[in-house]
């Protein structure tokens, strides 16, 4: 079964790669298999891990604990969600959607503000002159870096400040801000390349190692 599996996996891998030459039926078949299996996987995982584990066991407990009747409301909202499949009463699916959107907005509002704004502002306020704890000499790499952080954060915020025209000092600061953003995106780019290459390495390694046994 294992050997058969490896052959199946290898053929599917090559089938997807055939897109690189051009869009073709083999690729489309593999893509369709992917869509079907992927949707099925998500559905099964959510059935057993969420619906069964959380809802079913909660309302019909087997260990003698009290059933949690509140969960029925959750299930009701879930069923309303499914009504979206119907074009006539599909509008009622907006209720569970409204619930999710509202709860997410409420949760995100403070979470993002605290973690991504307040704490970042607080951690940017540091002594920019960094000295070594042992020798008390200035560590230039860190000191220049710390100064850059302050300049970068402030000028970056200036760039994203829309209430004032970018002229004069403000304009120059915004220009510095865009430089920092460019370095940021450049680093992102480098990391993205790293990520994509890793994924391809993983696939080719599979073909060579498990399928063709060229590597040991």
């Amino acid at each position, binding site marked *: 079964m294992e050997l058969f599996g490896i052959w199946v996996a290898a053929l599917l891998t090559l089938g997807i790669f055939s897109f690189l030459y051009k869009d073709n039926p083999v690729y489309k078949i593999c893509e369709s298999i992917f869509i079907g299996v992927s949707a099925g996987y998500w559905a099964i995982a959510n059935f057993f891990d969420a619906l069964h584990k959380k809802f079913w066991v909660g309302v019909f407990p087997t260990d003698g604990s009290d059933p949690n009747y509140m969960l029925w409301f959750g299930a009701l909202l879930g069923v309303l969600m499914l009504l979206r499949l119907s074009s006539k009463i599909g509008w009622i699916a907006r209720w569970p959607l409204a619930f999710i959107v509202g709860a997410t907005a409420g949760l995100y509002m403070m979470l993002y503000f605290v973690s991504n704004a307040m*704490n970042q502002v*607080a951690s940017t306020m*540091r002594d*920019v002159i960094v000295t070594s704890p042992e020798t008390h000499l200035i560590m230039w790499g860190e000191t220049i870096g710390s100064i850059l952080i302050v300049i970068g954060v*402030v000028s970056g915020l200036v760039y994203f400040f829309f209430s004032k*025209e970018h002229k004069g000092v403000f304009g120059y600061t915004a220009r510095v801000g865009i430089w920092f953003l460019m370095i940021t*995106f450049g680093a*992102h780019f480098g990391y993205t390349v790293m990520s994509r290459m890793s994924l391809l390495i993983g696939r080719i390694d599979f073909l060579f190692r498990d399928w063709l046994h060229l590597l040991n």
Partner: protein
Amino acid sequence: MKFISIYFVLLVSLSVSAQTNDNDSTSLLVNDSLTIKIAPPTSVIVEDYKYDDADNLQLHWVPSIDDMPQDGKVVRYRIYQSTNNGSFVLVDSVNFSVNMKKIEGLAIDSTYQFMVSAVSKNYEAKSNKTITIQTEREWINFNLASLFLIALLITSAVIYFIETARRGKELFVRKIAGLEAVDEAIGRATEMGRPILFIPGIHDMDDVQTLAAITILGKVARQVADYDTKIRMPVARSLVMTAARETIKTAYQTAGRPDAYNDDMVNYITDEQFGYVAAVDGIMVREKPATIFLLGAFFAESLILAETGNSVGAIQIAGTARPAQLPFFIAACDFTLIGEELFAASAYLSGEPKMLGSLKGQDVGKAIAMGVIIVGVISITLGEAYGIEFFSNITSSIQSFFTVNK
């Protein structure tokens, strides 16, 4: 006979351990020559855990004097709890060198007493018992008062500006470079007699980036209608198709040429990411558009589209809020709306009060952040460099105001 003797030994050992448990501050003796003896933790203090629902207590202690990370004599601390004067039971344990623990899941109407022991590999040294204590309930978490104030300030600013915009007052938004290039890009397509390609990302209408793209489409379509340029818009979602058709139709009507509009300007391709990309790639290569707009939520397809657009020599104006895709747009397109610029552009173009007001409210938040960072950094650097405590204090008080402590 053997059974009885085992039973007897068991009984004795049980009674011994029960004794030692009751006996404060003594240590459980283990008859072992390799015993690593350690001193117990001292000054164990229990107090109410602030700003909770009366279900937690806070426990502090001074670590055992043998608790030194280098020799690793003390392995863990064990926490024993007695509820309503009952016997002490082990409820939790923490790593060495830890000197506090939040005790959770307590009830409001019970009394509690605690004991902490230091544990080595084969020895346990228990502390004195703490005082007996009850939990208290507080209504509002005053630890978060500063957070509440700042949040209130920014949210009020957002609401204030939305209301101001609604009353018809004009709010200023700065020029956005990518938007200024739109006219020129459309003009170029008109001159060359080639079509304009507009791609609104691959997300549905529930994504704000798609909404922003459709708003900008409104402006583009208006100009396209005026100049009588051709526009092509392949989309990946059927709802986006409906919205886009509506937008372009309106633009043609406003331009006074409703007859020039037809539904074929916008067509739905497929929901599948790569299927969509392959189709759009084909359109680019065949029709060689003079101008390409890539605005909205893009994922891995961003670079494929930008590359093909580049290879057919089109002017490309891009914009997305996804940091991972921005590098590809910046490197391969002529103009890029970076992150919030996309939303600002759409707020500016639509003039919708809720969008403009939010933009202004967020600017208030950014102004606060900038001001606070500048003041804080300068004062702490001066304070530390010249040893002026006053300056250092300014920063530490701002910092404590902004740090959300738990």
